[in-house]
């Protein structure tokens, strides 16, 4: 299942190591996650549902969905998609049995910083780079490597030169990572487990691998926790082999592992289109892209590229069910009429061994919600969203949001929003020279980026967010 040749990517695989899966010895490479290593060995069933014991595989690949929980070295409920495989590691079915032996008391590290940034993706790293010349900054990310979703984007970016147009996402991730790690402290494999208001902003974070608890007092916090992929309701949607599009990108572009032999993609937005192309690059067959809307949602350049690869795109089509015993063996797709109802007799069986859902994202709003910042449902923004102003500050003073958390948009926007939040947060601690000029430039770029046709929805979302922010703040700041 490993990709041996790739036109764009070169996989820097680490040392060859061995681990055990349910007693069986398996090969892996240092630096890859347990989930990737299992996939490479053809294992896709990771867990079972609690009540009906249905087989489950991983879905999101970034630690958000919890369907990849396994028992690792005796510890139950380990998220295998963000835990690195190690020499001699024992990976088993999750029976929930607790390990024997004493627990080593965690080491507590108290920190005091000007700005804490939660999430080391496009927005978080950009914020860190922007703010760190003026303030002490810590970035916290629960993944083993920073870069967020950029680390799996093999395509070249659009937009302005300042936002690195013409550069591939993976390359942008590398540049951001290098710059940020020179300038500030990045805590990896570390999950922020809670925000507490103690009269000041207070975060608690845990590095489970090192057994360290961080208690962080921060003057400002920028939340850049991103988003999670949407699930779609259809029969059999929990079978192993049904992935979020991003989950497949992680597997394929970060770890060089194929998700299967033949895939079906649901959703013809940019994510679905790019994914089809990336699958083809990796030597994986794509039977079709289906799209419920009457037209393709993504850029025409991407659609044309996909078509040239021989992948058909069926608009006005949806998935009715997925079937298979232990993993996906096929799917039934169906045509939709103007009222989104199934067209009778239009069912078609599609042979595939995996299905990718590219049907949008939902902001990961739970952590920022703990701060007491006002959260509102705005459909155009992808769901529940923290209200914020043009400087990305929420209704709670000193709490900022940026990137997908602040509205589902492009990575270029995430980077700009990160810069804006980072600059404003730093400036509000101690005045930054040329603040107005810098800020104006970022905002201008942001405006230009949203001018295009595809900027219409996010623009509308942002307008609503700001309108409601000001409505709310008219009554005074919360918290």
């Amino acid at each position, binding site marked *: 299942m490993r990709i041996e040749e790739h036109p764009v990517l070169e996989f820097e695989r680490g040392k060859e190591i061995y681990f055990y899966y349910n007693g069986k010895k398996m090969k892996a490479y240092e630096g890859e996650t347990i989930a990737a290593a299992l996939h490479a060995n053809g294992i896709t069933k990771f867990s079972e549902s*609690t009540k009906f014991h249905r087989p489950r595989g991983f879905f999101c690949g970034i630690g958000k969905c919890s369907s990849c929980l396994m028992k690792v070295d005796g510890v*139950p409920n380990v998220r295998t998609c963000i835990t690195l495989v190690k020499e001699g590691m024992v990976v088993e079915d999750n029976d*929930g049995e*607790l390990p024997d032996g004493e627990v080593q008391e965690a080491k507590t590290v108290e920190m005091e910083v000007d700005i804490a940034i939660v999430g080391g993706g496009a927005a978080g790293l950009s914020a860190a780079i922007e703010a760190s010349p003026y303030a002490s900054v810590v970035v916290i990310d629960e993944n083993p490597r920073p870069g967020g979703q950029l680390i799996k984007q093999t395509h070249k970016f659009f937009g302005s030169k300042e936002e690195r147009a013409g550069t591939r996402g993976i390359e942008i991730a590398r540049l951001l990572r290098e710059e940020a790690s020179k300038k500030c402290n990045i805590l990896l494999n570390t999950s922020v487990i809670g925000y*507490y208001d103690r009269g000041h902003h207070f975060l608690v974070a845990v590095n489970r691998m090192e057994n360290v608890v961080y208690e962080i007092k921060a003057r400002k916090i920028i939340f850049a926790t991103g988003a999670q992929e949407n699930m779609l309701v259809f029969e059999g949607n929990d079978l192993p082999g049904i992935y979020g599009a991003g989950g497949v990108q992680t597997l394929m572009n970060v770890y060089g592992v194929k998700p299967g032999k033949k895939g079906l993609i649901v959703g013809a937005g940019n994510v679905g289109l790019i994914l089809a192309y990336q699958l083809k690059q990796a030597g994986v067959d794509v039977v079709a892209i289906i799209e419920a809307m009457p037209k393709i949602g993504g850029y025409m350049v991407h659609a044309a590229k996909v078509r040239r690869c021989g992948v058909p795109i069926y608009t006005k089509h949806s998935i009715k069910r997925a079937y298979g015993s232990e993993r996906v063996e096929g799917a039934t797709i169906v045509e939709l009429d103007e009222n989104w109802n199934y067209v009778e007799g239009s069912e078609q069986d599609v042979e595939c061994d995996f299905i990718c859902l590219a049907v949008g994202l939902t902001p990961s709003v739970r952590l920022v919600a703990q701060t007491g910042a006002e959260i509102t449902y705005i459909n155009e923004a992808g769901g529940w969203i923290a209200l914020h102003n043009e400087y990305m500050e929420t209704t709670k003073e000193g709490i900022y949001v940026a990137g997908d958390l602040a509205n589902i948009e492009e990575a270029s926007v995430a980077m700009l929003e990160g810069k804006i939040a980072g600059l404003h947060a730093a400036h509000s601690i101690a005045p930054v020279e040329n603040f107005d000029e810098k800020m104006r430039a970022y905002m201008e770029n942001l405006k230009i980026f949203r001018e295009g046709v595809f900027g219409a929805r996010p623009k509308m979302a942002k307008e609503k967010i700001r309108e409601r922010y000001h409505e709310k703040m008219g009554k005074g700041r919360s918290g």
Partner: protein
Amino acid sequence: MKERAEVVVIGGGINGSAIAYELAKRGKEVVVVERKWLAYGATGRCGAGIRQQWSTKENALLAKKSVEIFEKLEEELGHEIGLRQGGYLIAIHDEEDMKQAKKNVEMQRSIGLPVRIIGEDEIKEIAPILDPKGMEAIAATFCPTDGHANPFKTTYAYAMAAQKMGAEFYKFTEVQDIKVEDGKVKKVITDKGEIETKWVVNAAGAWSSKISKMVGLEIPNKPVRKEAMVTEPVKRTFDCMVISFKHGIYFSQQDEGQILGGIPSPEEKVGYYTQPTFSFLRHMAYTLGKYAPPLKHVRILRQWTGFYDVTPDALPILGETDIEGFIQCNGFSGHGFMIAPMTAKLLAQLICGEKLDMDIERLNMSRFEGEIVEEKSVVG
């Protein structure tokens, strides 16, 4: 929204929903007004334990009769409630505890509860995960018919059964005022409209004193912020609820394997504070690890806050008031869920002019004019 109803119940928690059911069953036209959604308040945030081991006879009897109802409730309501009778294990820490425990057990047994005092060995037998030394326990009391139910399922089961018999539930509807004429309840004014009525049941939990004020009655209830947490699911290893009055801890394992529990927070406050605290989390984790050492390996998934509606004697306020038609059903001080089935039945009997199954005169709000007898068996 109806313009008039025989009874308006304020609060869509377990008590409001159960009363609506008991009234609808008796043919009363009843509506429930809820500011948020069903089980939004204490009901949906509680440990949902069902305990009959109380120090006062009123509570013990209410709880015992409630358990009798709980045992047949799924059948009666036609909906699952997730009842599990794994017992309550209450730690006895020293000789003084033992004295009180013996007194309690004697009273509890006199009303027919199968409670007994057990030693360290039996503690380990009932829940091998427990460490009596870490618990600082010399013994425990155990009542096998205690247990817990799912608070959401139970509330919905009551509400759905009530609706089937004609009760109406108005969610996201806030009571703004209650009109009283000639010392009688006249009308409930909400942000969605007005309802004329002769009976109002104040089952508003931590907001009950605000509702009471609308008819000019002062009750001594105070909202106290309480915290709880739940862990990731692990293999089911024990069935009972474990509690200690000394440490204030309570915890049990849910059907799917999560450990759910609480302990008084070092930062406990009176007032409508909703923010959880980290000191609670540390304190809970530390104490839980002492009680059940293997749980040191378990990760906590969530913590949250809710309010106890606390009275000076930790006993509920039930029954009639100086305002004709205004019925109190609040002040449960952290144990409203477990006695709701019987409470609801009694108040429905009161409103319908039936003979009450049990005397509740001692739980009337008028008791605060005299000397009070405090309920001591309170946790969380």
